[in-house]
C-alpha cells in the first residue's frame, strides 16, 4: 500500500481532532440537569443501562468502522490506471459470513437486553421492600406550571397541602409521585433523580425517585405543551427528615399575618426596576453557588420587611382580583386556577421555576408577565376568567382588565415576599 503525503497529513489531523474531542466536550456533561451527575437510585439505574449500551455500541462501532476504514483505504483506486484496471472478482457474498455476523449482532443485543429488562422493572415502581417507607405526593401539570399536592398532609378545613412549582421531598426515602394533568400532556423530568414520565390526560401515571442526600434539583417539562413549554420548569428540594417535618409544619399553617405598628408609614423598596427585555435571564451566580442554602434562607421572614407596605400589598392583591385565581390560605383568597401562594415567599423561584424569587424579578413578572412567559394565563385569562387582557377573535389584545403600576407592584411584591 502506498501513502501520499496528503493522506498521511489527513490522517494525522483526524487523529488529533479525535483526541481533542474530550477536551472540547469535557464541560458538556455537567450542569444542573446532567444525567451523568446522578443523585438517586433511579437515575443511577438508568445511567448504568446507558453505560452498557455505550460499551456495546462503541465496541461494535470500532470493529465495523475499523473494517470499513481499512477496506476503503486498502481497496481505493489511487490512480487513473488503477481505476481502469481489469475489474475485480465479481463475488456475490458469503452466506457463512452473513450468518456469523447476524449471530454476533444478536449476541451483542442480548448483552444490552438483560440489564434493560431488569431496570425496566426496577425503575417502574418503588421496590416491594421499601414500599412501606415510601412517601407519596401528586404532581399535576398545567399550562405552564406544576402543582404539587401532599395527599397525606391534610389541613383542617382546606383539604390536602398544595404548593406550586417547587416540590419538597424527604431525602433518603423513596418518593412515589402520582402524575396528573389538568389540560394537555406534560412530562415530569428531574434528570439528576430519574428519567421522565408523562402526565397524560385520562390516565393515572406515576413514577418513583429518591434523593440520596439533601439537595436542590432542577426539573423541566419535557413534553411539548404549547406556547410557553420552554419556560415550564420546576425545582425539587430534598430535605433531611427533621427539616422536612419542620417544612411541612410551616406549610400547613395559614398565610403569615404582618401587623404594622400604629402610625408607621410605608417606604417603597428601593430596588432597581429598569424594564427588562423579554426572555431576560432571571438567575444569579450567587444563588447557583449554593441553591440549597439560598432556599433555606428564604424560609425566614426578611429582616427589612416593611409591615405597612405588606398590608397595602395585601389589600391590592384583593383589589386587583388576584384572589379569583390564586389562593392565599387565611387571607381570604381561594382561587384554584393558579398556583397556591400561601407560602410563596418561601419559594426560591417564580413563574414556574423560571426566575429566581427576588424582588426585581417578582416586580417584573407582576408588571409585565407576557414578556416573561408569553401566552401565560395570568395575562391571557383562564377557564373563562379574564386575565390582564382580553383578546378578540383575531387574537388582538383589546382591553386591559388588570393594570399594575410601579408603586402598586412594589407593595404587592412586599406582600408576596412576606408569605413565608
Amino acid at each position: 500500500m502506498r501513502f501520499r503525503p496528503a493522506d498521511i497529513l489527513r490522517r494525522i489531523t483526524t487523529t488529533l481532532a479525535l483526541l481533542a474531542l474530550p477536551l472540547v466536550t469535557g464541560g458538556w456533561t455537567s450542569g444542573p440537569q446532567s444525567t451523568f451527575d446522578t443523585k438517586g437510585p433511579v437515575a443511577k439505574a438508568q445511567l448504568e443501562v446507558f453505560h452498557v449500551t455505550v460499551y456495546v455500541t462503541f465496541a461494535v462501532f470500532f470493529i465495523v468502522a475499523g473494517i470499513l476504514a481499512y477496506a476503503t483505504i486498502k481497496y481505493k483506486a489511487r490512480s487513473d490506471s488503477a481505476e481502469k484496471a481489469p475489474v475485480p472478482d465479481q463475488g456475490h457474498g458469503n452466506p457463512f459470513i452473513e450468518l456469523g455476523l447476524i449471530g454476533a449482532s444478536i449476541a451483542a443485543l442480548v448483552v444490552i437486553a438483560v440489564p434493560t429488562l431488569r431496570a425496566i422493572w426496577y425503575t417502574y415502581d418503588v421496590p416491594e421492600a421499601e414500599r412501606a417507607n415510601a412517601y407519596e405526593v401528586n404532581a399535576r401539570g398545567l399550562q405552564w406550571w406544576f402543582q404539587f399536592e401532599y395527599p397525606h398532609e391534610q389541613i383542617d378545613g382546606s383539604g390536602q397541602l398544595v404548593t406550586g412549582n417547587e416540590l419538597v421531598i424527604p431525602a433518603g426515602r423513596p418518593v412515589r409521585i402520582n402524575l396528573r394533568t389538568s389540560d394537555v400532556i406534560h412530562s415530569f423530568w428531574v434528570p439528576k433523580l430519574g428519567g421522565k414520565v408523562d402526565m397524560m390526560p385520562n390516565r393515572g401515571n406515576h413514577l418513583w425517585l429518591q434523593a440520596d442526600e439533601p439537595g436542590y434539583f432542577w426539573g423541566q417539562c419535557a413534553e411539548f405543551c404549547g406556547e410557553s413549554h420552554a419556560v415550564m420548569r420546576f425545582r425539587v428540594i430534598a430535605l433531611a427528615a427533621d427539616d422536612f417535618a419542620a417544612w411541612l409544619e410551616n406549610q400547613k399553617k395559614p398565610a403569615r399575618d404582618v401587623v404594622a405598628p400604629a402610625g408607621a408609614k410605608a417606604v417603597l423598596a428601593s430596588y432597581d426596576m429598569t424594564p427588562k427585555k423579554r426572555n431576560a435571564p432571571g438567575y444569579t451566580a450567587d444563588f447557583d453557588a449554593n441553591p440549597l442554602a439560598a432556599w433555606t434562607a428564604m424560609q425566614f421572614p426578611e429582616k427589612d420587611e416593611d409591615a405597612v407596605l405588606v398590608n397595602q400589598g395585601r389589600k391590592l392583591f384583593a383589589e386587583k382580583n388576584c384572589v379569583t385565581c390564586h389562593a392565599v390560605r387565611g387571607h381570604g383568597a381561594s382561587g384554584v386556577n393558579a398556583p397556591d401562594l400561601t407560602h410563596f415567599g418561601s419559594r426560591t423561584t417564580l413563574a414556574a421555576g423560571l426566575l429566581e424569587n427576588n424582588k426585581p424579578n417578582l416586580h417584573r413578572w407582576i408588571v409585565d408577565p407576557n414578556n416573561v412567559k408569553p401566552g401565560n394565563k395570568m395575562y391571557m385569562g383562564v377557564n373563562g376568567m379574564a386575565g390582564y387582557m382580553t383578546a378578540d377573535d383575531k387574537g388582538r389584545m383589546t382591553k386591559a382588565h388588570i393594570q399594575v403600576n410601579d408603586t402598586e407592584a412594589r407593595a404587592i411584591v412586599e406582600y408576596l415576599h412576606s408569605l413565608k
Partner: protein
Amino acid sequence: MEAALKTAYTAPESAAKTSARPWFFTRPKAKTGLVSWLTTVDHKKIGLLYAITALFFFLVGGVEALMIRVQLAVPNNTFISHQLYNELFTMHATTMIFLAVMPLSAAFFNYMMPLQIGARDVAFPRLNGFAFWVFLAGAIVLNVGWFTRAGAPDSGWFGYAPLTSVAYSNQFSGDSSTDLWVMGLQILGVSSVIGSLNFIVTIINMRAPGLTMMRLPVFTWMTLFTAFLIILSFPAITIALVELMMDRSFGTGFFEVAKGGLPILWQHLFWIFGHPEVYILILPAMGVVSEILPTFSRKPLFGYPIVVFSGAVIGFLGFGVWSHHMFTTGMGTMATAAFSLATMAIAVPTGVKIFNWVGTLWGGQIITRTPMMFALGFIWMFMMGGFSGVMHSAAPADAQQQDSYFVVAHFHYVLIGGSIFALLAGIHYWFPLVFGRMVSEFWGKLSFWVIFVGFNVTFFPMHFLGLNGMPRRTAVYDGNMGWNSANLVASIGAFILAIGIGIYFAVMVYTYFKGKKATGDVWDARTLEWAVPTTPPPEHNFNVTPTVHARDAFWYEKTHAKEIAEEKAKHAKDEDSHGGIHMPSQSWFPLVTATGLLIGGLFFTHHNFQGAIAGGCIMLLGVLGWAFEGPGGYHLHIHKDGTVTGGEGQDEASH
C-alpha cells in the same frame, strides 16, 4: 384479420375520431412549454416535478432550521418569539419529512424505477400525474398558514392530542393553523397512497422480460418495500387525522378529554404510522446507496438476497416497534419490555445492511467520485445514528433521552447523515443520466466535505446537550445550565452545513446550464437505467425493450455485448407488429381534480362548507372528465438509423 386488428389499435389516434370529441375531452399534445408540464404523464417529467418541488421545500425547511439555530445560538435569546419558534420547529419537521425527503424519494422512484425495470412508463400514467398535483396541493395547504394572521401550524409535527384540540391550539377563535395541518397531511396521504399503489403495480407487472424478482435492482426492491409501507401505514394516520378533524370541526370527542376521549389513542395511531414512516424515509436512501456502492467498487452488491430480505424484515418489524416512541407515557412494564426488545431486534437487519455494504467495498476497486463520497459518508453517519438508536431501545436509558436533544442528534444522524446524504449522492450519481451533463468533481467533493463537516459540527454536540438535560422544542434556555458552548458550536455548524448545501445546489444549477456534456454510461454502471439510448433518456425510454439475463442487467449487457446486440436486433421490430411503441396521452384532468381537492381543502379548514362542497364538485368533475376523455395513446416508431417518428396526433400513414 390483421387489418382489423390494426384498425382497432390505431383507431383512437385517427384525426377524424379525435376531432369528433368535445373540445374538453381532447387530450393535450404540447411536448414543450408550460402546458406540457401541467398535463404531463411522463414518469420522467413527473419525477423532475417532484424533485424540483422537494428541493424547494428542502431549502424552505433549511431556512426554518437556520432560524431555530440562530435563536438557540445564545441563551435567553430574543431573535424570535416562542410562538414563531413553535411554528418553525413544527413546520421544519413537517416540511422536511413530508415535503422534502418523501417527495425526493418519490422523484427517484418515478424517474429511475421504470428505467431500472425496463418499462416505458408506470402502470397508471395519469394517476402518477395526479399524485404529484395532489402532493403540491397538500404542500400549499400546509404552508399557506405562513401568510395568515394565525401563522403556520404550531402543535408539533406529531400533533399530540389534546394540544391540537380547539381549546388548546387556537390562539384565538379564528385560528385555523391546526386545521391546515390536519387537512394538509390528509391530502399528502392521498398523494402518497396513490403513488405507492402505482409503483407496486408497475413493479409487479411491468418488468422487462427475464427480470425476475430476484434480479431486481436493490433500489427497485426498496421502492417496492417503501410503497407497501406507505399503503399499510398511512391508513392509521388518516384515521387519526379524520377523527381529529371531526373533533375540531363537528364537536366529536375522540381525543377530547372532557368528552371522555383518549389522547393516548392519538399517540398509538400516530406512531403506528410514524415509525414505518421512519423506514419510508430511510429505505429509499438505502436503495440508492446499494446502487452506488457496487458501481464505484466495480463489483456486485455483497449478499444481494440478504440485503433484500433484510429490507423486508425492516419493513415488517417496523410495524411492531411504534411504542418505543412512547416509553415515557406510562405503558407499564410488560409493554415497555416488549417494545424495547422488538426495537433491539430491528437493529439486526439494519446491521446486516451495513455489513453487506462493507462487504461490497471489500476486494473492490473503489473509485471515490463524489457520489461515492456521499455514499461512504452515508454509511458512517447512518452507523452512528443507528448506534444511538440502539441506546434508545433500552427503555430505562431512554427515560432520560426521550424528548431531549439526544433524540434530536440521533434522528438527524439517521435522516441527514442517512437519508439526505444518500439522496444527495443519488442526485450526483444520476445527474448525467437525467440532464446529460457532468458535475465538476472538485466542486462536488468540496460540497461533500463542507456538508460532512457542517453536519457533524451541528449535530454531534447535541448528543451532549441531551444527556446534559436539555429538552427538545424549547425556544429559550437559561445561561446557567451548561448548554451555552455546545449550542453555539451547533449553530455555527448549522451555517457551515448551509454553506455546503448552498455550494451543492449552486454547482447543480451551474452544471445544468454550463456543465460539461456527458453521454451514456459515465460511471461504468451496472443497472438498466443506464442502458437508455441517449442521455437524457427519450420519452419512450428504450428503443428496444431490454431482455434481462442476470442481476446487474446492464453490466451483463456490457460484458456480453455481442449476444445482446443480436438479441436487440431480433426484437427491434417487435412493437411495430402491434402498431409501434405505445405511449400514453397527456391529460388536463389530474391537475383539475387535484385543484378541486386544494380548493375544497382550503375552504374546509376555514369551516366554509359551501366552499368545501364547491371544491368537491370541481374534483368530481375532474374525475368525470378523466373517465370520459377516452383512452388516448399514440405510437412511436424507431428506425434503423435511430430516428423516431410518429407521435401525438400524427396519423399512422407516416410510416
